[in-house]
C-alpha cells in the first residue's frame, strides 16, 4: 500500500478536474491510501526565488503559509498525481504556485517514486496538452520518477462535462491498475 497525494489544480469546487481526481482516487483507493490536496483549500504565496531555503534551518521557507502543511503531506507520499485544468497551454497559475514552491532542498527528503498526470481542457485543439507533456517528461527525467500514466480529457468546459466520454473511466482505471 502506497501513500498517494493528488494535487488538484482547479479552484472550481466540483469541477471537471476534481471529478477526474476523485475517479482516480476511487480506483487507487482500493489498494492505496489516497488524499486529494486541492489548491482551492490552501493559501499559498508565489516563490520569490530568494533561495533562503537553501541555508535556513530545516530548509524552512521564510513564508510560513499553507505550503508548510503541503510540504508535510508530500514528505509522506510515495506517489503524486498532478491534476489540472489547462490554462493557456499550461497548468493553472494556482497549481504552478505550488509547483514553484517545490524548488526547495526539502524535496531531497521526499520519498516520491512515481508520478501521474490528469489534464482537462475546455478546447479540442490537437496540440492542447503538448507543452505540459513536454514539461511532465522533463520532470520525470530530472527526478528519475516512474510514470504511472496520463489521463487527458478535452472538450470539458462546464461543470459536469466530464461525465460525457470515457475520461472518468480512464482516471479510475489509472488508479485501480496501480500496483
Amino acid at each position, binding site marked *: 500500500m502506497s501513500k498517494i497525494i493528488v494535487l488538484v489544480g482547479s479552484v472550481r469546487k466540483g469541477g471537471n478536474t476534481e471529478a477526474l481526481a476523485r475517479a482516480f482516487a476511487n480506483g487507487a483507493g482500493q489498494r492505496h491510501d489516497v488524499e486529494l490536496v486541492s489548491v482551492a483549500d490552501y493559501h499559498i504565496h*508565489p516563490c520569490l526565488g530568494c533561495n533562503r531555503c537553501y541555508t535556513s534551518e530545516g530548509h524552512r521557507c521564510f513564508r510560513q503559509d499553507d505550503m508548510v502543511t503541503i510540504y508535510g503531506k508530500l514528505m509522506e507520499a510515495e506517489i503524486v498525481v498532478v491534476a489540472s485544468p489547462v490554462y*493557456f497551454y499550461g497548468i*493553472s497559475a494556482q497549481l504552478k504556485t505550488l509547483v514553484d514552491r517545490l524548488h526547495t532542498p526539502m524535496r531531497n527528503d521526499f520519498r516520491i517514486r512515481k508520478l501521474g498526470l490528469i489534464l482537462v481542457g475546455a478546447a479540442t485543439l490537437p496540440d492542447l496538452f503538448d507543452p505540459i507533456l513536454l514539461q511532465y517528461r522533463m520532470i520525470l527525467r530530472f527526478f528519475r520518477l516512474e510514470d504511472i500514466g496520463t489521463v487527458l480529457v478535452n472538450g470539458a468546459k462546464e461543470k459536469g462535462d466530464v461525465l460525457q466520454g470515457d475520461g472518468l473511466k480512464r482516471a479510475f482505471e489509472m488508479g485501480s491498475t496501480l500496483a
Partner: protein
Amino acid sequence: MKILVLNGSPKVKSDTFRLTDAFLKGMNRSAEHEVHILHVREKKIAPCRGCFGCWARGDGHCVIKDDQNAILDLYRDADVIIWSFPLYCYGMPSHLKAVLDRTIPLVKMKMVQEADGTVRHEALVDFSRIHTVIICGCGFPHWEGNFDGLKQMCKTCFGNPEMVCVPETPLLNVPEAAVVADPLLARFEKAGEEYGAALSLSDKTIAELEKPMISAEEYIRQVNS
C-alpha cells in the same frame, strides 16, 4: 511604438531583466519608443477562477477587481509586448502565469477556424498587430530540453513570438563574470536595435544570444565553489 514589458521575475535584482533592459536600450536607439515597464511582483493578481464571467461580460475585462484589468488595457494598446522572466520548473513563474491566464477576457467564447486549419477564439483585440518577444533566463548550464515546454506553450499562445532562451543567467549577478556577461549584454543591445528596426530577429542573432557564456563544466565548477 508602445512597448509593454511584463517583468515576471520575483526578484528586484533580476538577472533576466538585465538582458531585457539591454534589449530595450537597443530598441530605443532606432527610435524613441513609449516604454511601459510593469513589475508583476508589485501587482496584485489573483489566479483565474475559471468562471468565464469575462465572456459573459464581453468588454475585455475580468470580473475580479485587482490590478489585472489595468494590465489588460495596457496589453490591448501595445505594439510590442516583451515577457521577461526566469524559467521556473520548465515554465513561467506562477505570478506571471496568473497574468497570462487572466488575459482570457481579451477573447470571446466564439471560435473561428483559420485557412490553415488552426482553431482560435475570436478576439476582441487585433492580436496580429501586437508583436510578442519572450526573453527567458535559466540557471542551468545547457538547455537541452529545459525550454521545450515553455517554447511550445508560447508558440501556441502567442503565434510564433520571437523567443530568446538564455542559459547560465545567474552569471549576470557575479561581478567576476563581467568578462563574459558584458559581451552578452552588448549582444542583447544590438539585437534590440535589430528588433526595433525590423520587428524580428534573425536565427543567427537568436543563436548568438542563446549561446552559453562559458562551458557547462566551467559553469558547474563556478556554481559549486
